[in-house]
């Protein structure tokens, strides 16, 4: 299948028509799953806000499953597939390798996702996103996930194949750009992730058909090999997008390729084992295993994040200083384009990911401190800061460039678009912070009713819990508004929007 090339008027890159098409298809499906997951988020939020307590118990756990699956797996991975096509074919002026296989991968991912959605909405998979054995879902639930993963493996393989083709056909000179390198580390981690995924979902699928046993502790061990590694794909992709947005918005520079690339490499080397921090208060492992696997391994990955936490802002600063913004310590930041939603999303993503997400995550991942964090609201407080305030926000920011550059559409509701990252970020900041506070008082996660109506005894949480949960709800609602604006702007721009002026 051959495509044609066009030349991007902004960057001068030669863009393959199949790359355009695949990016668009994956981005559109990502947005659909974001919408489903977002509606589920709102329903869950309005239920955990006890003053409203919207859903019934069964529907709450069901929507919680829908929310987790759509956000953590479908939305983020479909978006990342788009990122992979961009980082390979587009950034390297190359054709996409074997487009037919790429489309097959896309179809498999969509079919798998649709199967999982059907199972969840039909009430045949009320097991939450983690589906911990012995909780059992319909076999088609596990099969859908397996199909989705197979499709993703196809796409990841095509990413690597495209890198090889681009090198061979000399569509670029020198080394691949840093953004492509970062995307490649995300892709390598994706292979590790999907390997764990196959390792756990195939036996679990067979177990759901009563064909074999699966030990519950072993399930948690292997599942989190998939579960945590998948989050590291998100981190590597997010950091790559940080470098991309820096380049597109203000021409931020790479201080030192060796340092940044080594930090990406550390993610690959040390991430699979670090999944142990999900198992720190599990009975199946001893302290030596726990301390080793959560620390030596994770802390080099933590070092990597702290390195990027320096090089990304420093790249912005040096880029600005080289262009004349040299006054004092912070003129480079004050006179940056804060009205560019790509830029504001970048900076807010760095701040929320680092300060709230990173600090809480490393702290809770300490063997002993986990005792006062495990399965409380501190945990979702942490990961909403990293995945939502960090990765999703960065993805939203880059969308404002994907719309004109790939979809060739102007951004609709431009004044709203400009403030969208701020609304979403403020909402998420309040939400995550309040959530972690509530968790510090022992409020459980994944729990329908902390008034314990109908339970044999009463529970008296710290009196401030009610206030904190209300603040959390307000933060969540603000974030939901931000998310809704994002979806409105992107859907309108793509389908009803004004085209970019034609290229000469």
């Amino acid at each position, binding site marked *: 299948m051959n495509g044609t090339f066009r030349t991007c008027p*902004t*960057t001068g890159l030669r863009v393959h028509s199949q790359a355009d098409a695949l990016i668009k298809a994956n981005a559109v499906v990502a947005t659909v799953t974001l919408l489903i997951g977002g509606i589920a988020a709102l329903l869950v939020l309005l239920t955990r806000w006890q003053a409203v307590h919207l859903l019934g118990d069964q529907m709450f756990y069901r929507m919680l499953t829908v929310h987790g699956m759509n956000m953590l797996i479908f939305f983020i991975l479909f978006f990342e597939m788009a990122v992979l096509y961009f980082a390979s074919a587009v950034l390297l002026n190359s054709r996409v390798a074997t487009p037919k296989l790429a489309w097959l991968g896309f179809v498999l991912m969509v079919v798998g996702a649709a199967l999982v959605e059907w199972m969840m909405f039909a009430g045949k998979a009320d097991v939450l996103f983690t589906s911990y054995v012995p909780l059992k879902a319909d076999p088609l639930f596990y099969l859908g996930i397996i199909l989705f993963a197979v499709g993703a493996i196809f796409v990841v393989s095509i990413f690597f194949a495209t890198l090889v083709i681009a090198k061979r056909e000399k569509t670029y000179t020198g080394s691949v750009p840093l953004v492509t390198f970062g995307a490649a580390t995300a892709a390598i981690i994706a292979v590790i992730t999907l390997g764990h995924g196959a390792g756990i979902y195939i036996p679990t699928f067979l177990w759901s058909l009563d064909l074999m046993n699966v030990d519950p502790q072993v399930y948690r061990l292997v599942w989190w090999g998939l579960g945590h590694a998948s989050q590291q794909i998100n981190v590597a992709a997010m950091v790559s997008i940080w470098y991309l947005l820096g380049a*597109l*918005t*203000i*021409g931020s*520079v790479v*201080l030192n390729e060796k340092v940044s690339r080594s930090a990406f490499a550390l993610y690959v080397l040390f991430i699979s084992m670090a999944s142990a921090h999900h198992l720190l208060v599990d009975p199946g492992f001893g302290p030596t295993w726990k301390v080793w696997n959560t620390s030596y391994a994770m802390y080099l990955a933590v070092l990597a994040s*702290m390195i990027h*936490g*320096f090089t990304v*802002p*420093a790249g*912005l*600063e*040096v*880029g600005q*200083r*080289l*262009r004349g913004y040299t006054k004092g*310590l*912070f003129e*480079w*930041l004050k006179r940056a*384009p804060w*009205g*560019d*939603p*790509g*830029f504001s999303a970048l900076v807010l993503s760095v701040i929320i990911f*680092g*300060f709230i997400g*990173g*600090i*809480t995550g*490393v*702290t809770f991942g*300490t063997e*002993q*401190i986990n*005792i*006062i964090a495990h399965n409380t609201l501190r945990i979702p407080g942490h990961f909403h800061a990293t995945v939502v305030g960090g990765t999703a926000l960065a993805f939203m920011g880059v969308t*404002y*460039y994907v719309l*004109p*550059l790939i979809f060739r559409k*102007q*951004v*609709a*509701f*431009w*004044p*709203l*678009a*400009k403030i969208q990252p701020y609304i979403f970020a403020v909402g998420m900041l309040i939400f995550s912070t309040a959530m972690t506070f509530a968790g*510090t008082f022992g409020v459980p996660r994944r729990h329908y009713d902390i008034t314990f109506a109908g339970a044999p005894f009463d529970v008296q949480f710290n009196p401030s819990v009610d206030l904190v949960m209300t603040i959390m709800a307000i933060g969540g609602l603000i974030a939901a508004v931000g998310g809704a604006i994002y979806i409105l702007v992107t859907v*309108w721009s793509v389908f009803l*929007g*004004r085209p*970019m002026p034609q290229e000469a």
Partner: protein
Amino acid sequence: MGMYGVPQGVSNPPQPVPQGTELEEKGFGGQAPGTMVLVLVFLLAFVVYYFVNWKLLSVLWRIG
């Protein structure tokens, strides 16, 4: 119908880094003082939050 726009990175892409400036020739040579301040603030927040949590842990029942 809503107003349309594009980010400034598309309508007015950043100029390439001026070549041959003193800064460019020396390499950036540590010229990111603002960032250094920011990361040190981050580290301080990290250290404080981390040790506060050890303190919270220490007042619990003894568990081993």
